Structures are given as C-alpha cells and as structure tokens.
C-alpha cells in the first residue's frame, strides 16, 4: 500500500517538475527585462547587440531554446550563468547546502520553541500564561520574517552586539571543510570553534525564519493537546499519579503530534521560500541570496536552475512528509 502510494507520488513529482520547468522557462522569457539590453555598453551598435544575443543563445525561438535547455538538463547540464559565467548546476549545488542548513536550524528552533510553548500553554490552559502565549503567537505570525530580521539586527547586532550581522562564516577563519555543509561538517569533525562561529552567523536569520513557524506549531499543538487532555486515557494517567507535565509529555504529546507533523512539512517549504529575503538581509551566501541577484541581472539560465532545484526540494519534502505520515498513521499503514 505504502509502496504503491510512493510510486504514484514519484510519477506526480515528475509531472510537477516538468510543469514547473515549462512555466518558469516561458514566464522569465516573456517577463519584462532583456539580459542583453542590461549589459549593453554605451555606443553598442545593432551588430553588437546581435552578436551578444547569439553568444548567449538568445537569438533562437523560445521553443527552440526550451528544447535545447531541456535536453541539457536531462544530461545534467543546466547551462552557463550569464552573469557569473559558470556552470549553473555547480553554482546551485554549491549554495544549496547553506540554505538547507539554515532551513534545518530554523526548523529545529521552530519545533523547539513552538513545542515548548504548546506544552506550557496546554499545561497552563485557561490562565494568564496561556493568554500570554496566544498574544506572543499572534505577534510572531503577524510580523513577517524579514521584519523580525531587522529587529534582531538592531537588538543583537547593534544595541547588544552578540551575533554576527552578515555572512555565513567569519572571513578570517581557515575552513577545513570538504563539503558545503559547513555546520554539519564542523560538528562531525568536532571543530566546535567553527560550529560556534557558524551558529553565531546563523542564529539571527534562523530565528527570523523560525518565529512564524514556531507560532503555528505552538497554536496547533496546544489545541491538539488541550483536546486530548480531556480524554479518558489521559484522565486515567492523572489518576495514576502522574504530574500534569508528565501526562502531557508521556501520554498526550505523541498523539497530538501527528496533525502537527503534516503541517510542519507544508510550512517547511514556505520557510525555505522565506530564505530568499532573509538571506539577502543577512548577506547569507545561500541559494535565496543568489536567486535575487539572478533576477536582478535577468540571468535566465541561473533563474531556471534555482527555481527547478527549489521545486525539486519542495516536492521531495512533501513526498517525505507524505510517506512519514503514512508510516506513522496506523489507519494508513494498515489500510
């Protein structure tokens, strides 16, 4: 049953990615802004324009360009960036780990903060503490991530400068890494001096990305917990002498987590989307930051490559969540 579900999802994944590729390819070519017009020097003649257009393969029809690009993609060649003059796939794969690390750290913060608030809120239900948590959740949700970022820069970057404002790692450090997963590799190599430096750069952008998701987790999980806390098996646990915290953590949390898991999966893709602006704000060298430059420079091959990788990431996350849900949910597992 799960295998069949997995294969179906793989098929829809391929169709989705093809659709994204077509839409992105067409949209960025009909959208305003010609990359050749942007690089024209003063005094360029029509012959110069034609020469540059041919150099970047933009002199062919859109259909022709699409099939040339698609054939390349199927062979692992995503083309060459117009502005960076490098292989697109190499550029994207080089940046992807930075964005993934940031997103995963943000997710961990969101789950930790949201989970703790949910447990506290459920335990203190009906009191001023729960009301306070609801107010905090409302604020975290209504303020966009980049505004949180600006606030953190002011507080933790300027007024109390404890975290680094920009970049991913201090330029003065020598990095022994062989992969682009700096944070994970620093932990693996037990180079905690580098881990500390990386987290010092990552903390503010990750927190800015995490807060809205933390609020969603806190609200949903708290609500699920509150509903479960009135059920018989929970009441029985109380009768057995468990404290309220023990009741929540040992009895209610596992069952309450399932609906939250699905939501976290969906929201995680939004969180990755949010890295575009937040990475820019903190000059974090991830895929999102590069995406903005690519759009500004109308770097068509790079935009296509980035969007396709983002799309692949999104469908993979959705697939993973779907499979995890199927595994964890007994009704689906045995159905």
């Amino acid at each position: 049953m799960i295998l069949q579900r997995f294969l179906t999802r793989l098929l829809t994944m391929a169709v989705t990615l093809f659709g994204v590729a077509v839409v992105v390819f067409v949209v960025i070519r009909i959208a305003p802004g010609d990359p050749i017009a942007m690089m024209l020097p003063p005094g360029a003649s029509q012959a110069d324009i034609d020469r540059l257009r041919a150099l970047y393969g933009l002199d062919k029809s859109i259909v022709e360009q699409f099939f040339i690009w698609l054939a390349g993609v199927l062979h692992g060649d995503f083309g060459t960036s117009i502005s960076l003059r490098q292989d697109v796939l190499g550029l994207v794969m080089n940046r992807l780990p930075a964005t993934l690390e940031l997103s995963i750290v943000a997710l961990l913060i969101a789950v930790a903060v949201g989970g703790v608030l949910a447990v506290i809120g459920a335990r203190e239900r009906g009191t001023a503490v729960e009301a306070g948590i609801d107010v905090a959740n409302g604020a975290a949700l209504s303020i966009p991530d980049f505004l949180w970022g600006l606030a953190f820069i002011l507080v933790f970057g300027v007024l109390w400068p404890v975290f680094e404002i920009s970049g991913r790692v201090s330029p003065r450090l020598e990095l022994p890494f062989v992969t682009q997963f700096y944070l994970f590799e620093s932990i693996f190599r037990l180079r905690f001096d580098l881990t500390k430096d990386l987290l010092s750069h990552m903390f503010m952008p990750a927190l800015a990305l995490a807060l809205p998701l933390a609020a969603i987790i806190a609200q949903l999980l708290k609500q699920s917990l509150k509903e479960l806390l009135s059920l018989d098996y929970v009441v029985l646990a109380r009768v057995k002498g468990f404290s309220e915290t023990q009741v929540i953590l040992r009895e209610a949390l596992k069952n309450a987590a399932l609906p939250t898991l699905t939501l976290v999966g969906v929201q995680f893709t939004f969180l990755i989307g949010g890295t575009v602006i937040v990475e820019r704000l903190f000059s974090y060298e991830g895929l999102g930051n590069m995406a903005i430059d690519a759009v500004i420079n109308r770097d068509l091959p790079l935009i296509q490559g980035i969007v396709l990788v983002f799309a692949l990431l999104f469908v993979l996350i959705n697939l993973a969540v779907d499979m995890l849900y199927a595994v964890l949910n007994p009704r689906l597992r045995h159905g």
Partner: protein
Amino acid sequence: MTMNRRELLGYGASALGVAAIGMPNIARAQASELTIAYNVNLPSWDPTTGPSAVNPTIQGIYQSVFDQFIPQAPDLSFGPGLLTQWGWNQDRTKVMMTVREGVTWHDGSPFTAEDIVWSLQRAGDEKTGNPIQFVWKNVNNFKIDGNTITGDVVQFDPVYFKWMSFLTGYVLPKAYYEKVGAEGFEAKPIGTGPYMVDKFERNAFLRLKANPNYWGGKPAFENVTIKFVTDAASRVAEIESGSSQVTLEIPYEEYDRLIGKDGLAGSCDTVSDIGMVFFNDIDVMKDANVRKAAVMSVDKKLLVDRLLRGYGLPIDTLETPEYAAFDPSIKVEYNPDKAKELLAASGYSTDKPVKFTIQTTKGFKPKDYEMIQAIVGMWRKVGIEANIEVYEIAKHYELRAADHLAPAAFYNWGNSIGDPTTSTGFAMYGPSPHSVWDGQDVIDAINPLWAEPDEAKRIAGWKAVSKLIADNAYVLPLLQYAQPIVHAKGVKVVPHKSGALLPALMTPA
C-alpha cells in the same frame, strides 16, 4: 506558573547556550586590518567580459586587484600607470605606448609589454564577449620593441586612450591566463594591482592581501575584508556595531545620523553619476513649448535640498563640472511663469493640461520615485499632467534599447572618464541604443565629433551640442549625485570622483 529546580536549571542552561553561541566574536579594527561593508556582490573576476564588465558599481573591486592601462586620480585626472606614456602619431594612423618596467604579477612573474598587447587584442576579439569590443577593435597590428608598443589605427577614436581607464580597460596576465584558462582565472585571479586576492566566497566576502611589490607603493592596510552586504539597513548596522570600519551607499538620513555618532565620520561628495529625465521624440514631446515648459518648471535645487538633504548638485546639461566639456555658461532657468506662457502658446493651461506618461524606477537610485513625484507636482502647477509609471530597471533597459520609452523617463548616467562622448554623446545620439531623443539636428551636430582629431575643437564642438540640447530642451538634466561614505574615525578615506571605493586610498588616521 510554578517552576521546579530542574526546569530552572534547564532554562538557565539554554540561556547560557544561546549567549555562548553569540559571544562577541566580532572583528574589531586593527592597525593592519580593514573591513568594508560593500553594497554589491562581485559576480565574476573577469573585468572584461559579461555583464560585470559594464557594471560601474564593482569597478572599485576590480581596480584593487587589477591595474587599468591608464589609472585615474581621485579627481578623474589621468596619470601614468602600467602605461607611462601614450599618444598618437601626427596623422592619427598609429598609437604609441610606453610600458612601465619592473612590475610583477601577483604570482611573482614579470609583467611585460606582451601582457598589454595580449589584453588589448583579447578585448578587441569579439569571441571573448567583451561588451566594449567596438572600441578595442579600432587598433590592431601591435608591434613590441622593448617596452614600447605601436599599433595601427583601423578607425580613429579620440577617446581610445580614455577608454583605457574605463569599463573593460584592464590589463590581464597573458601567460597565467593561457595556463589556467577562464575557469582557473575565475578561481584564482591575479593582477598587478595594489591588493592580491587571498580568499573569495561569492555573495559573502572577499579577503585581500596587500601587494608588497606594488609599483605604486604597498597599501597601508595589510589585510582588507570586503563583506558583500547588499541591504542598506544591514550596512548601517555593520558600521554602527563596529563590525565594519567603512561602508557606502546608505540613505542620506542614515548618513547624517551616523556621522553625528562618536567614533564615526564620513564624506558625501559628488561623483560622476547624474540623474536625468529622458524625453522621447514622440507625442506631445515633439512640441518644443511642452519640453521647454517641462524643463523650466522644475526647481532642481529644491529637489536636492528637500529630498536629498542637500547632497547633490543641480545641473543644466549632461556634463558635470569635472567633465572635459563642462560649460558653466549654459544655464537653464527655473521659471514657472515662463513655463505657463509657453504652454499657453500651445493651447495648454492648468485647466486644460498637456498629458503624458513619465516612467521611473523606485528605489534603484536614492529617492528616484519621490523625485519624480515632486517633479510631477511642480509640473501640475504650470499645466502639465503626468502619469507616473513605475518599472524595474531591467524593463527600462529593454524599452530604451528598443526606443519604446514613454515621452519622459527617469534614468541615471555614469561617466567616470568625464568625456563628452560617453555622456552627452551616447545619451543623445539618435542611432545609439542608449539614446532616446532621435532629432536629426543633434545627430548632425554630433556626427563630426566622433573622429575629430583636434582636441580643443572636439571639446568646443561638444559644448555646442550641449547648448543645442539645452536651448531646445531635448532632455531634462536634474542633478549630480553625491556618494555617502561612512567610516570609523581611525580610518582615513579618500573618495574617488568615479564613485569607486578604493581600499588602496585608505590609510589609518
């Protein structure tokens, strides 16, 4: 809410953990270290090909690592560099250049006349994708004799040597480039410039190390870190927190606030970049009275004072005071009453205004949209009703190249070599893809100047073109921009009129 001992310890440990991660780890200014929060990313290390080659905002980084054929002083004057002498023969059929001796590349290999010739030939080769190839192809058949180079002129261009200080005018290492190829050069670029590339993380930072053998003398700061901080608010935070010692291109309001703080200073001098409104020779803009009224009714000083906090210089032509063809006698008066009269002569009034569209960017240049809003307000008072259309700069380039801009369109124009060809010339010469006004009288006035060998006559000719344009209101020049630079008081910064922020010009105060 109650909290037991275990929870208290847990919260305490968490707080300590967060504080430990964020312990101040920030590079403070040291005598040999300089950190600059730069406003743009560096896309590519090849200063002669692709879009980076014509991007004025990154030329300061290129000029730190590479030398141009001919360098410019902070006041835009030209001086000896890798070329110590240059010029034409009497009949302008040959160029002659003398190459500096005793210069080495960053890898220690000797710099020679061959590097100059190879760089010029490569720049003129259309296969390399040099966007300025149309200039470099004008001289070929170079011959080397010791440290002297001669070349044959294919087509005389009086600005040829000035281009050697401008976009793509960089000397690259022949032997090294041929050995490592384009990709190898991108990974490890070398030049003859004042700084050597130590470490480069794209979109993040660039570490430079002083070139001890620099022909112009070793720079004052041993190590320079350039952080690419593209968000203006983050750059303000960088300088305010002490994480960086120098930054640039921040809002004028923030500039005023920051230079009032202890430990910070700054400069906000004019640079070779102007704001202007193109007029397109379509619709109502064909009416001279409408154009003249549109120019006369704009109080440029008020725009500079109110919107740019006084940072900027109102201009009457596309030539700024530093440019070779600046003529202070050309003045365009601010006279809203006269503007009304002119419009009345064409049948327009405040009750029956002339209508057209003005296009502008929003946030591309400081207060661009606000400036256009203010101009539209000034126009409204005399009988011009302009509809503002906001677009991205990429759209502007596309429309301008296709000559499809609205009757009026805001733009900025940089010209760090200060020659009239690369300002008034390319902006106003009809056949140029950058020109918007296509009037035949301007084309006829400019045509003989492209190849005028007599420099005095050439400059006089360009001044006459400026007068013709001003008299007929073919364009609305607005202001010369000022560049805000904020720095720690421990650093002395010399601003460059080109707008390039050069670490080599910075010294400990």
